[in-house]
């Protein structure tokens, strides 16, 4: 089952490598990874999506928690949550692609004679579906942000 793990971590050199390294070391795969500074900039928030059973995820979160630089870890998939992903897509002029992306909050950022660059965002599964239906024809390049997410309601990840 797909899991979204949110991690609040010290924004220090090497901290990200410790988390990423741990996934590999313990035999788990990273599907998507997003990271950026938050609050006063001394923290980073990472979002990692992976696949695993309940037990796997319990082990992963416990092991991540042991990393000295990690402040908090939470499996968003355990409860109700918001989850989105952002994509940038470059393609040769195509009505079809434009139409698909429009349906996903699509926005045009560049349009010239040969290529177009558009952004779109939505739930990862919607993004997944969109990318599949775009197919290969006319597509030049895709960049994905990876999932980011928050718990629903009062629950937050902070110190």
């Amino acid at each position, binding site marked *: 089952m797909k899991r979204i793990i949110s991690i609040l971590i010290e924004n220090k050199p090497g901290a990200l490598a410790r988390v990423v390294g741990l996934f590999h070391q313990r035999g788990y795969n990273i599907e998507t990874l997003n990271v950026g500074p938050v609050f006063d900039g001394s923290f980073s928030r990472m979002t990692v999506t992976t696949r695993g059973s309940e037990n796997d995820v319990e*082990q992963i979160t416990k092991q991540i*928690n042991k990393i000295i630089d990690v402040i908090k870890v939470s499996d968003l998939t355990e409860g109700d949550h918001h989850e989105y992903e952002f994509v940038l897509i470059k393609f040769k002029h195509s009505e079809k692609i434009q139409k698909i992306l429009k349906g996903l909050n699509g926005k045009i950022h560049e349009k010239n004679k040969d290529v177009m660059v558009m952004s779109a965002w939505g739930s990862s599964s919607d993004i997944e579906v969109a990318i599949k239906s775009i197919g290969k024809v006319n597509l030049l390049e895709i960049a994905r942000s990876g999932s980011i997410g928050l718990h629903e309601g009062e629950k937050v990840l902070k110190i």
Partner: protein
Amino acid sequence: MKLSGGDLLMRALKDEGVKFVFGYPGGAALHIYDSIFKQKAFEHILVRHEQGATHAADGYSRATGKPGVALVTSGPGATNAITGLATAFMDSIPLVVISGQVQSHLIGTDSFQETDMIGISRPIVKHSFIVQNTQDIPRIVQEAFHIATTGRPGPVVIDIPKDKTDPSQLFEYKRAKEISLRSYQPRVLPHPGQIKKASKKILSAERPVIYAGGGVILGNAHKELISLNKLLKAPVTNTLMGLGAYPAKDKYFMGMLGMHGTYQANMAMHNADVIIGIGARFDDRITNTPSMFAPNAKIVHIDVDPASISKIINADIPIVGQVKESLIALIKEIKRAKIKIDSEALDRWNIQISQWREKHGLDHDLYLSKIKSSMIAPQVVVQELYHATQGNAFVTSDVGQHQMFVAQYYHFNKPRRWINSGGLGTMGFGLPAAMGVKLAFPKQEVVCVTGEGSIQMCIQELSTCLQYNLPIKIININNEALGMVRQWQDMNYGGRHSASTYSDSLPDFVKLAQSYGHVGMKVTKQSQLKKTLEKAFAMKDRLVFVDVYVDPNEHVYPMLVAPNGSTKDMWIKKNTKA
């Protein structure tokens, strides 16, 4: 007064109470070595290989309970320290390993003797630091010791680029009163609700087993463990790492469990209705096939590391906390509880265990029955050693059959006396570890029981032992083979001894010891064994290397049947399953 980075480091180590630093110099560490020359707070022990430095610091830590410190240069110095770091990491030993690094502006340029120490060591350290500002050195050292010694202990690396110890750059020394890290707050006290549940479960048991590991020793909780069992009177088993946590001579002690554990300990685990795991991690050498492990047992698991709980075997009652604090709380709760343990059931259980012991238990009197035999049995060497040292020695060991024989036959009654690499199984650990122990306890007997394979992995430290006058006793159980490898080949590979023998190319260990300035003795006959050991131990101020030729065909038994075996499935002797 303002200090250079090197001097800041000295001051910080002094303020941590460091007495010994085990190290080896090189270019990137030269400023630091100059600072060492000028200080008096600790003694620097010059080893002969950086692996030796890390193992010696590790042995010092295991014997004293204090953190061990090693210092190495960049590049090859750092990589040579890796095995020692991994060894300490697997057994949760608090070490602080300081590595020199190339100058900051050269990092990333493939400069001379540059390796990414932080990157290489990442998966085998509890934490690591690279010094970016000289003035941070005192804080980093303080944090490193704090992290290494608290929670689940472990090794910490501090990588120091050479320019950060430049003697011409001076800074103020500042030491914080207290360390508080927002991202690191290990749990100390157990959850009271869990303690209540555990007490209830334990007191309703009819066939309880206490399964205690190295965490009891690391957490200095052996007294509490003994107190707990004064109340419970349950059978106790220790892991390889836990030997000494519970007195071996106590009547409730069943010996070690697991791969080469005693018959009664492994049978008790399989048949228990409640297993109280304390500072132990249910690893694969203990559980055999996890799905077949202790089919009828409820598991109470106390550990300071939440990630150790329910990792392999699901815990019914997990308790996260320091072992000592958790046991104190548990003892209190058990004393207060209204229900009492069913003493009749418990008596029946203890009798059952005695019967198992009688049926297939270890023979601790082999040294009597084998007195006339021509070849020396390795088990007898350990038994004679036990008697020669009255069971009071610090015993380090290497890895292989000899290690298991010590674990089985040397009765450890006190914690921190049995010093071995359990988790990583590092050949070469024994001799340098013994140096660390001997430095900490110069008046006590320190013995390294090794094999002719293992001892050759760090043999160069014999030279260090001469320089610092460390009269360790080395008992080389010489079976002229990588005995444990050969045992597996005998049992699983039709006796094809692929790359496990070298009898025609072994060194003359007596001459070898002598050329390093020590005493060498050789024993080939049972009749010489006792006398030679006595002679060796009588030489109080000399390192004596006793090379004992033993029966090369001995195997270690019991041995769990794998794969697809539970802990009741054991080889009890050659070709015989229990």
